[in-house]
């Protein structure tokens, strides 16, 4: 009986060629590049929402810059004249803080809800882990994709800031690095928290209202931290927004800063990132094994 005849008998719906995983799949490939594969899936998921990402990414800064930047800025500039905050126009002073906040928001969105989705809503983390991909690679892949989103968010914000004349093109690389760093370190802490949530009981709404908003308001965003009474300044000291904003200000318009303070800012964000990621891996490993 010829092969065609056999296939005809088996019917069109059969799996015709079967090489077999032993020959077809080299485990070394996913073991090496698994994180990138997970990031690819996450980015595919994000692209389903590209219109919202774009509208939010551009709409938010435009509205913000018009109301706070120009509105309040004209007031600040008028009263303080050439000696304005740090001797720069108010928008230039504000820009690094706005970028940091946008970065934090973008990165956070992509580690919090996707983690609930992966563990609880569609359990897709379990399907990833049923392949050669390890829990650690899933964590890294989700974070990589979150940083990709973060870069897009920051780039859109920068485009708006350039259009408003708030920053110069030459300051973009420095501002981007500062903002992404902030996004990474804060998102890693949120990631560690998300990995421990069994049900979405509104915890992110609480985090948004009681952590993100105060952090944004009391982190030397609109005015130098030193202008706050001493009993409120601690919020800035434990806030990644303040540390990253200071880095951004120093790098973008040369805000005076001592080398020790500069290193302290970088150190704080690094510690946060390392602690956050280290606290994210164990719950992933534990939950995926059950």
């Amino acid at each position: 009986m010829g092969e065609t005849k056999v296939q005809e008998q088996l019917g069109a719906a059969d799996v015709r060629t079967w090489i077999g995983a032993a020959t077809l799949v080299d485990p070394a490939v996913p073991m090496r590049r698994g994180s990138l594969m997970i990031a690819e899936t996450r980015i595919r998921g994000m692209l389903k929402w590209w219109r919202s990402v774009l509208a939010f990414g551009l709409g938010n800064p435009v509205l913000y810059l018009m109301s706070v930047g120009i509105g309040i800025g004209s007031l600040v500039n008028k009263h303080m004249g050439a000696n304005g905050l740090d001797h720069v126009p108010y928008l230039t002073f504000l820009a690094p803080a706005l970028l940091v906040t946008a970065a934090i928001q973008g990165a956070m969105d992509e580690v919090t809800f996707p983690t609930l989705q992966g563990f609880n809503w569609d359990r897709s983390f379990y399907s990833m882990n049923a392949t050669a991909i390890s829990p650690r690679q899933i964590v890294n892949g989700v974070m990589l994709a979150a940083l990709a989103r973060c870069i897009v968010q920051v780039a859109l914000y920068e485009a708006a800031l350039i259009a408003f004349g708030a920053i110069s093109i030459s300051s973009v690389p420095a501002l981007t690095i500062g903002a992404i760093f902030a996004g990474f370190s804060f998102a890693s802490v949120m990631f560690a928290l998300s990995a421990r949530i069994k049900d979405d009981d509104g915890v992110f709404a609480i985090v948004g209202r009681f952590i993100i908003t105060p952090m944004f308001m009391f982190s030397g965003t609109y005015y130098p931290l030193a202008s706050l009474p001493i009993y409120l300044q601690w919020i800035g000291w434990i806030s990644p927004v303040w540390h990253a904003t200071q880095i951004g200000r120093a790098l973008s318009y040369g805000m005076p800063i001592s080398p020790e303070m500069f290193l302290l800012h970088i150190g704080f964000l690094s510690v946060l990132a390392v602690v956050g990621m280290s606290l994210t891996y164990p719950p992933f490993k534990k939950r995926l094994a059950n």
Partner: protein
Amino acid sequence: MANTSKETMILARGLRKTYGEFVAVDGIDFEVKRGEAFGLLGPNGAGKSTTMKMIAATSQRTGGELSILGKDPELKGPEIRAHLGVVPQQDNLDRELKVWENLMVYGRYFGLSRKFLKGKIEELLEFAQLTEKRNAKSEELSGGMKRRLTIARGLVNEPEILMLDEPTTGLDPQARHILWDRLFRLKEQGVTLVITTHYMDEAEQLCDRLIVMDKGRIMAEGSPAELIKKYSSKEVLEVRFGSDNNKAVAEQINGIGDRLEVLPDRILVYSDNGEKALEQITKLGLHAITSLVRRSSLEDVFLRLTGRTLID
């Protein structure tokens, strides 16, 4: 597949899994050979899914020995998983992605090239009868379609072993039959299947050999026919005398057939000739509300072994 020799695919010796004080799997032994369709039959909580997770190299054993494709899952988890296909009890498709994208990203996790996957996806969509739904989001599919997609996804790497945890639970009869047909085709092609189920008809349809599990232990092992022959009679007579009367009637008809089982709603009379047993009952002046003679099934085996029905 050319290689259908009796190569050992899975070997478990004294396999044990505990969660704190709770013993989920209590020292079980079994072996699965290449090309076999091997079943784990038992009620909910018997330890089937836990056993599956250990075979799938995602959950680590607490004790005993386990070898999958000749490797220890504790040491070679990713290497083993790269060559398995897993269909979990709960569908875990990426709900944001389209049907074909679910297959694409999953194939990528095995490091398969996009070029290979392009052809493979067409093949799998056809196999799962989802070609028309290729661009639908997975969350828009019916239960049966989701299940078929999950099975197709489990085949994307052409696995050495395809593991199916309760593959047809929650599906309507038609969807179950379509799935059985697909799985039967895979079996014919020589794919090693490991299936858990609490449906005895499913186990009888699909499994060459199975273990009956209860409370983390293996109660019996063999082919469906062997198990039925060993633990049950050829036929079963089911008689109903009303819930309040069954117990009293059972005492009167004791001795008819090989053995009796009294369930809350009916009496099962195990006999090689069900019609004859019914005649004997009628001769005693007892008239059943309903009576039915059927052939013995794995359900009867389970009842014999554990004193309980499979679906409580």
